[in-house]
C-alpha cells in the first residue's frame, strides 16, 4: 500500500471547535465501522465519546502527532533485536518534559480511540480500512504499536500502576507535564487497582488524573449485578485519593476537571456514562452491550438505517 500522504490519506484538517460535535462524529464513525466489520466494541465509543473528545481537544497539553497519517504495517513486538519498533504513543505527540501523556487502560476501547484520532485530525480516515486487517496495527484490542496506545494495557488493572510509575518518575525528573489515565469501572474489580490507588495516595502522586468510564456494564452484564463497585466514590476516597463524580457526557463538566486538582493528592474522576448514549438502536441489548454482534442481516440493516439517520441529523 502506498503510504505517502497522497489524496485519500489526508487527515481531517478542520476539526470542529465543539467537543459535542466531535463526540457525535466519534459515535457515527464507530457505528459505521462496526457495521462494516459485522460487529465490534460499539458501546465503548458511546460511553467515552465526550471524554475522549474533550481530552484530545482541550484537557491534554500534547503536541502534534508524530505518526504517519497512514500507520506503518505491524513491525513485530518490542525487543532488543527490533530497533525500528514504532510506539503508538507517537500519535499523541512528542515525549517532552512539559507535555502531557495519555494512557488508555481498557484497550477494548481501541476502536473508540482510533476514530477519535481520526476526528481530531491525527489519523487519516482511510486508516480505518485497515481496522482488524491482518498485518496491520489497528487491532480490535490494540497493543502499544497501535495508534494512540503508549502501553499494552488490555489485561485489566495494570495500566494504573504503570501510569502511576510514570507520574512518579516524571516527578523525580522534575517534568511539568501531566499524566492522564482513562480506565473503566470494571477494573474496580481488580485487586491491583486498589493496590495502585493506595500507592498513589501514599506517594502523593498529584501529576496524574484518572478518568473512570463508569458505564456500569461488563461482559457478564450489569456491573452491579456481577460484583458491585458502589459506592465507588466513597471507596476511592477511603483509599486517600480525591474523587469527584460528573456526568461523563457533560462537556462542560469534563472541561472543569483541572480545577479539581489538589496538591499532594491523586485526582480520580468518575464519569457516569451510558453505554447506549447516542445509539438508541442498541438500547434494547442492554445490559448485553459489551460487544455487538449482529444476530441477523436484518438487524445489521437496522443499524445501517440508524447510521443514515444520524448522518442526516448532522446535516440539518
Amino acid at each position, binding site marked *: 500500500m502506498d503510504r505517502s500522504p497522497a489524496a485519500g490519506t489526508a487527515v481531517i484538517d478542520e476539526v470542529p471547535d465543539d467537543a459535542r460535535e466531535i463526540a457525535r462524529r466519534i459515535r457515527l464513525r464507530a457505528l459505521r465501522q462496526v457495521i462494516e466489520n459485522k460487529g465490534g466494541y460499539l458501546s465503548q465509543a458511546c460511553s467515552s465519546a465526550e471524554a475522549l473528545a474533550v481530552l484530545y481537544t482541550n484537557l491534554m497539553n500534547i503536541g502534534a502527532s508524530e505518526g504517519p497519517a497512514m500507520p506503518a504495517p505491524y513491525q513485530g513486538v518490542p525487543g532488543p533485536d527490533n530497533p525500528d519498533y514504532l510506539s503508538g504513543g507517537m500519535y499523541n505527540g512528542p515525549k517532552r518534559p512539559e507535555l502531557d501523556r495519555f494512557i488508555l487502560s481498557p484497550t477494548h476501547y481501541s476502536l473508540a480511540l482510533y476514530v477519535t484520532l481520526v476526528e481530531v485530525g491525527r489519523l487519516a480516515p482511510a486508516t480505518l480500512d485497515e481496522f482488524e486487517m491482518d498485518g496491520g496495527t489497528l487491532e480490535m484490542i490494540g497493543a502499544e504499536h497501535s495508534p494512540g496506545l503508549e502501553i499494552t494495557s488490555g489485561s485489566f488493572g495494570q495500566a494504573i500502576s504503570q501510569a502511576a*510509575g510514570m507520574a512518579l518518575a516524571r516527578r523525580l525528573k522534575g517534568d511539568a507535564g501531566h499524566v492522564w489515565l482513562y480506565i473503566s469501572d470494571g477494573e474496580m474489580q481488580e485487586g491491583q487497582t486498589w493496590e495502585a490507588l493506595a500507592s498513589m495516595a501514599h506517594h502523593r502522586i498529584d501529576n496524574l488524573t484518572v478518568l473512570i468510564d463508569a458505564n456500569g456494564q461488563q461482559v457478564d452484564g450489569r456491573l452491579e449485578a456481577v460484583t458491585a463497585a458502589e459506592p465507588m466514590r466513597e471507596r476511592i476516597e477511603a483509599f486517600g485519593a480525591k474523587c469527584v463524580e460528573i456526568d461523563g457526557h457533560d462537556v462542560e463538566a469534563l472541561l472543569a476537571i483541572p480545577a479539581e486538582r489538589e496538591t499532594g493528592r491523586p485526582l480520580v474522576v468518575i464519569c457516569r456514562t451510558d453505554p447506549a448514549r447516542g445509539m438508541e438502536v442498541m438500547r434494547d441489548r442492554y445490559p448485553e452491550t459489551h460487544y455487538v454482534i449482529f444476530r441477523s442481516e436484518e438487524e445489521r440493516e437496522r443499524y445501517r438505517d440508524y447510521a443514515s439517520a444520524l448522518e442526516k441529523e448532522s446535516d440539518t
Partner: protein
Amino acid sequence: MIEAVSRPHHTNFPDWAAEKPEVVVLTGDLTRPCELGLFRDRFPERTFSMGMAEQNMIGFAGGMAREGLAPYVHTFGVFIARRTLDQIEMSVAYPNLPVKMLGFLPGISTPGGATHQAIDDMAIMRTLPNMTVLETGDATEVESMLDVAHAVNGPVYVRVLRGTMRRLFPKDEPMKLNQARVLGRGGDVALITSGICTEEALLATQALAERGVGIQHLHISTLKPFDDPAVLETVLAARRGVVTMENHLTTGGLGSAVAEMMTTNGAGGRQIRLGLQDTYAHGATQAYLMRLHGMDARALVGAVEDLYSDRFGVDDEELAEARLIDAHETFKSEAL
C-alpha cells in the same frame, strides 16, 4: 578454608549504584530481608517501599523504566514468579523494559517452606520472550550479576543469594552473560550445575576423580539465553552421560535447558536430572532438604554410579571431609 562472605549484596549494591543515579529500588515490604538497609540509608530518595502489593510494584517499575529510570525490584523469588506473572508479561517483558528483578530465597535455600521456596521461578521466567534469566552461585556472582543485568537491554530476572556465603570464584573472575565456568575437566561425565548446587557438587567431584571418573564440570549462571557452545561441547564429549543438578524442579530449569540443547543438536547420551522431582518442599534446613530430595553430594555420586552401573564406595564420611578442605583450591587444581 574457603573465604566466607557476609551479606555481599548489602554492601556491594549501594557502592555499585552510587554513580548510577538512574538506579531506583522498589521492594515489597522486604527492605532488610533483601539486604537493602544500607542502600535505603544512603539513597532514601531512590528507595521505594511499595508494601505488600507486588502486582502494583511491577507496574510502577514498568512505568518508571518507560521514563528512563533503571528500577531494581527486590523481593522473594516466589512473589515475583507466581504473584506477578501477568504483570511482568504485559507491563515489563512485552515492552522489553529494563526492569531488573532480584528474586531472593531460591529453592530450598530457605527454611520458609512451600510459601517462600521459589522452586519453579526459573522455569516460568525462561518461557518469557525478551527475558534474561540469571542465577548466582557465590559471593562473586552476587556482586558481579549487577553489571551483567545492567548491561542487558531488557528485563532480567536474577536469583540472588543472601546472608553468609562462600566465595567460590575469584573476585576478579566476574559472572559473564551466557558463559559457563569450567570447574573441572574430564571426558566421562558432563556435570552441569547452577546456584547452590555447584558448591554441593564440588564436595563429590574430588571423590569421584579419585576413583577415575573424568568429570567435565560446568557452572551455569545464565539460564536464558542458553546457547553457550561450551555446554554443547561438554555434553557431546561426555562418554558416560550427563548429570544436571539444580536447586529447582527438574522441569523447566537447568535440566530442561540442557535436555533441549541435547535433543536440538542430536546429542543422544543419557541425562540424569537432579533436583526437586515434581514435588513441593517444606520448611527445614538446606542440608536436610538437599538430602531428602536427592540434590546433595551423595545424590550426585549415586547419579554417576548409575551412569556407570557400578558402585564406587564413597561414604558420607568421605563427602563430609570434603566440606573441610578448600573447595576453591580443589576446582582450581582441576581447572586447566
